[in-house]
């Protein structure tokens, strides 16, 4: 079967790697359509012929569920994003950032999950008000990355998944922002529910998850003591770890 997969643009490179494996393993084919989560959501609501939707957030799948547009029980978190502070030139810290006049690139909190996370991080660290007027907001995390990569903004809060070998970056403490849960759903109108379920199973499989992890995401599954896979529930906020704060703020 051919599965039409709608994927949030940030996850597309990862999904392409996964797709190869999936196609080999199952013989199904994937047609990957990438766009921003908001666009994909609007398209799905208005009749887009997708089978599976890999969102960059948890909220849109939730909304689809409320509308009754998904196969019951098909919503799963498939990866979790991680924020990093990236300055390709001289490395910098959030403290320096608070005190100097440099611009800081984040994704737009209003429309991008990474943006929301960045805002939470900065607020929780108490430096939002310092940097707010210097923020440059990308419409997506990809754009935010481009702002920094092109050298137009010296520092940005981007996704770890975007970092490539040799990039110097600082991982931000995940306690300071709500987990960037990326959920997937199977759409109710899919003509290939079985293949779709196979795909979901595949994504949650250990091998897939380790590949996802290697692309810079938190894996969402852990092995149970008895070796069976369980879904990781990272919904509760982790307790704040003072030491991590210090290091995030001060370490260069």
């Amino acid at each position: 079967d051919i599965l039409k997969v709608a994927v949030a643009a940030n996850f597309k490179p990862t999904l392409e790697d996964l797709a190869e494996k999936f196609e080999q393993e199952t013989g199904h084919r994937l047609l990957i359509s990438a766009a921003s989560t908001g666009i994909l959501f609007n398209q799905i609501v208005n009749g887009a012929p997708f089978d599976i939707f890999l969102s960059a957030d948890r909220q849109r799948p939730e909304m689809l569920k409320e509308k009754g547009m998904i196969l019951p029980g098909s919503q799963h978190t498939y990866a979790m994003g991680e924020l990093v502070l990236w300055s390709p030139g001289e490395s910098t810290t959030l403290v320096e950032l608070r005190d100097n006049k440099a611009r800081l690139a984040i994704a737009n909190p209003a429309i991008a999950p990474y943006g929301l996370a960045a805002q939470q991080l900065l607020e929780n660290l108490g430096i939002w008000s310092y940097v707010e007027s210097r923020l440059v907001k990308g419409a997506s995390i990809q754009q935010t990355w481009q702002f920094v990569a092109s050298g137009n903004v010296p520092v940005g809060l981007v996704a770890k998944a975007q970092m490539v070998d040799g990039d110097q970056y600082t991982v931000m403490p995940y306690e300071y922002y709500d987990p960037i849960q990326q959920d997937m759903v199977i759409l109710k109108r899919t003509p290939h529910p079985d293949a779709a379920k196979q795909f979901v199973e595949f994504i949650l499989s250990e091998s897939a998850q380790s590949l996802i992890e290697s692309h810079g995401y938190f894996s969402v599954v852990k092995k149970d003591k008895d070796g069976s896979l369980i879904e990781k529930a990272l919904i509760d906020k982790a307790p704040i770890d003072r030491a991590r704060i210090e290091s995030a703020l001060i370490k260069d």
Partner: protein
Amino acid sequence: MLITAIWVTLKLATITTIILLLLSIPLAWWLANMQSRIRPILEAIVGLPMVLPPTVLGFYLLLLFSPNYAAGQAWLSLTGSTLAFSFTGLVVASVIYSMPFVVQPLQRAFEQLDKGLLEAAAMMGAGAMDRFFNIVLPCSRRALVLAGCMGFAHTIGEFGVVLMIGGNIPGETQVLSIALFDAVESQSFEMAHQIAGGLLLFAMVLLVFLYSLDRRSGKSSGSRVC
């Protein structure tokens, strides 16, 4: 992959340009000769798609095409498929989006045409259609080429509407501009540069060719004043 995107793009741009010209030529002629007071209103309506961001225009087209609403429902029951996320839908959307860029230069050219020539043709027994095809269109050749180029180029470069309406489905609605966008988004800059370079080169060759076609009409009569 890229090959199919190129193919879809060329098909889309060509079909769209043809439909655009077929629709815009009579529309522009009608507007150009309209005596009514509502002409500026109609002209403004034709120009309106320009002021909406393409993605937003695409969004509203999505709503229009959606089976959730009357128009889309009607289309669905008529043809058995939705307009959105189909090649046909892309063509419809591109036509709407690029229409002003084709209608307006044509309308201006038609307005500037010397009416005396049409009177002369009429006196030789040429009816309205005859005059239109044998005088109006040949005399507006430059404007037709320009309008066609604008429509074609704009459709190739178009992206927001296509993304919204098309859904980026490879082989069906994934056009080059989206592939290019994807490449930039997924940091495949090598590929992005190649696609962008290829697009520019192709456009350059096409435009130079078309613009060279009517060298002759542009030739000056040797006057020193300009």
